[in-house]
């Protein structure tokens, strides 16, 4: 069984949710919440998830302080060794702030925090986190963020649009005014992926409101599938 680290900073608050949901997807999973002070590249982690929350209170800017932390330097090192990394919500913001993914974040266009379910569509699924999905698949899951307006400059967008995995809100569902309706984006090989919506809140149909299906399950299944020896 692969070993997954769930990296926790002061203010991270979705760590236990990710753990619970991973176990719901596969009860045998080996996953562990790792306090940022204890996180090491050499910890033998097969994948790392940076969960949501408000690291360091999100003071200054969402994810900005955590992005400069020692743990994130270790994580950056891990990505060069091909360890898959998933950033969810604040985790995505941290990865972007740390320069592991392109773009930047701005406050929601409404000026308010927003918590609601949205529909996403996948472009260029690639890499371990999306291995069981196909281009054009629709996934449903909730967002909950105040600074979730993903922004990417046009030339950067041009350079990733046809090569990198991108998750987009259906245009009618964009909750924050992000560029090109982007909800999530990955590196070209898809090993590092970040997304604003919360897949861990969408692994069980019990938690999906009427009209929505739990679309987070496939992301966790994908990584567990991809990490199986021989993949």
């Amino acid at each position, binding site marked *: 069984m692969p070993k997954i680290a769930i990296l926790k900073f*002061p203010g991270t608050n979705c760590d236990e949710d990710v753990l619970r949901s991973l176990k719901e997807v596969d009860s045998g999973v080996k996953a562990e919440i790792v306090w940022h002070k204890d996180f090491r590249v050499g910890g033998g982690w097969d994948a790392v998830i940076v969960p949501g929350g408000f690291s*360091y*209170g999100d*003071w*200054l800017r969402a994810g900005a*302080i955590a992005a*400069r*932390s020692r743990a994130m330097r270790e994580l950056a090192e891990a990505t060069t060794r091909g360890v898959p990394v998933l950033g969810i919500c604040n985790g995505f913001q941290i990865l972007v702030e740390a320069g592991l993914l392109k773009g930047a974040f701005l406050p929601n266009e409404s000026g308010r925090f927003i918590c609601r379910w949205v529909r996403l569509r996948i472009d260029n699924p690639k890499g371990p986190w999306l291995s069981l999905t196909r281009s054009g698949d629709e996934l449903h899951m909730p967002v909950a963020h105040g600074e979730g307006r993903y922004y990417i400059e046009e030339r950067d967008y041009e350079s990733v649009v046809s090569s990198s995995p991108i998750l987009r809100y259906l245009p009618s569902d964009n909750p924050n005014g992000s560029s090109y309706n982007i909800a999530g984006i990955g590196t070209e090989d898809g090993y590092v992926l970040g997304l604003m919506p919360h897949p861990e809140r969408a692994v069980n149909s019990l938690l999906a409101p009427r009209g929505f299906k739990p679309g987070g399950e496939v992301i966790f299944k994908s990584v567990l599938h991809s990490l199986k020896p021989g993949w």
Partner: protein
Amino acid sequence: MGLYRVVAVVSLKKGLKDPEAETIQKDLVLRHGYSAVKEVRVGKQLTFLVEAESPEEAISYVKEMCDKLMIYNPVIHELYVTLHA
């Protein structure tokens, strides 16, 4: 009539705890060795481009506006209004 750029800064009153500033100082500035920084304070800066007869008028116009609109809360904030340099 002229156009004036008036800057209003809203910050927490002295003596009140400022968790944002403290976190920035402790977990960012000092952690990375910028120890010459003795204190950090955080405020919000609003810049208004105002049409007025004179700079004084522009300033007092903005002051009144900030009060009326309750852009800051006099109970916890201080407001500092100047003409943009």
